[in-house]
């Protein structure tokens, strides 16, 4: 399992999660707005962190070690999807098996939930063979008792089994560094305070271990 990014050790001043994709436009036409083609099959996750400040030598060294482990994108790291008020103490599982790339799933709320799932709720699928994958509820199709049928994005990255655990407490995603310009390496001022203005990560798809 890859190490997780520690927001406690390296706090950030800005955080931007987004779903990335490949959309190609044919341009405007005389008779209408033209056509868009979406080629990504559901997209992938990207996150941009901003404003990391390194004030002590211990922090600077830890950051350097982190960058070496990330290996210009060849290494992997688990990025947590942070919220203002994260869920805690919840347990949930899939109420039915779902195929690879499914976008409609059934989730049973076992404990700790105050009500049905809401659109925009993030969760990750804990599968040690296929790493942690982040998904977000797009809309709730129906609710029967404690089972919600929801539409999710991005599509499932692997098939899931009946009763497989779903993690709403600490949703996260396996990612790699995307830093072609070398901006992750800090710039130091005269007081040896290092600053990293921007740091980007992209969802990664390694083969199962």
């Amino acid at each position, binding site marked *: 399992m890859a190490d997780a990014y520690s927001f406690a050790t390296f706090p950030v001043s800005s955080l931007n999660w987004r779903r990335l994709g490949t959309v190609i436009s044919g341009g405007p036409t005389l008779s209408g707005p033209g*056509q868009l083609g979406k080629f990504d099959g559901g997209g992938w996750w990207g996150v941009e962190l901003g404003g990391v400040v390194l004030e002590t030598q211990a922090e600077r060294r830890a950051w350097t070690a982190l960058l070496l482990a990330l290996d210009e994108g060849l290494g992997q790291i688990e990025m947590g999807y942070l919220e203002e008020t994260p869920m805690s103490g919840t347990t949930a599982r899939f109420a039915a098996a779902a195929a690879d790339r499914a976008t409609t799933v059934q989730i049973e709320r076992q404990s700790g939930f105050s009500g049905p799932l809401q659109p925009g709720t993030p969760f990750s699928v804990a599968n040690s063979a296929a790493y942690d994958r982040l998904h977000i509820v797009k809309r709730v199709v129906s609710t029967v008792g404690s089972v919600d049928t929801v539409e999710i994005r991005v599509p499932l990255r692997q098939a899931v089994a009946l009763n497989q655990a779903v993690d709403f407490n600490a949703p996260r995603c396996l990612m790699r560094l995307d830093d072609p310009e070398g901006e992750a390496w800090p710039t130091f001022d005269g007081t040896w305070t290092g600053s990293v203005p921007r740091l980007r990560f992209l969802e990664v798809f390694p083969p199962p271990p």
Partner: protein
Amino acid sequence: MSGPIISEDMAELASAGQIRPALFLRVASTPVIRAWTGVSTFPVPEDSVETDENAVYRGVGLITNFPVVEALINGVAQRMEVGLSGVDAEALALFQGDKTDLIGRVANFGMMFLGPDEQPACSMWWYRRGIVDRRIIRRRNGSRYFGLSIGTGRTDRRRPHLSFWIDQEHQKQYPGDLGLSRLPLHQNRTRKWPRWSS
């Protein structure tokens, strides 16, 4: 090619300006190369081209120069170079098999439309078939580029990169066809066209 290319539902979506094409490449090498233009994996059911009922296509992101949908007019042959730009190590490993095993293999291009729920909205349409005749690997500014040159026939006046007039190459394209198996018997011999006396 006969029959509808896409269903009426997909034609309606396409006319509304919302299409979600998923493009697929299958090369019948050993092991089989299966790639598609999205991310993550894509299970593809068994059909006339895909012979494995558990086939899973690997997402390799944007494939450059994917052949557009064109008909061969008057039998004119075409050549295309399919490229993967900025590939990561895992994707590149797909194509870095034994070079001799890639050359001469059948390559199929397929397409299907996904619906608004990102699920297949029609069956796979294998719209183009060709033969791999060259493998290309380049590195530009630290980025890897991998390409396959695929021809649908003899495409230039010069001698083509690949000829099929030996049994081993012919077997790659048509396994089990013994049409050229006795060709070695004709090596280094001059056959004269018979002259019939009147």
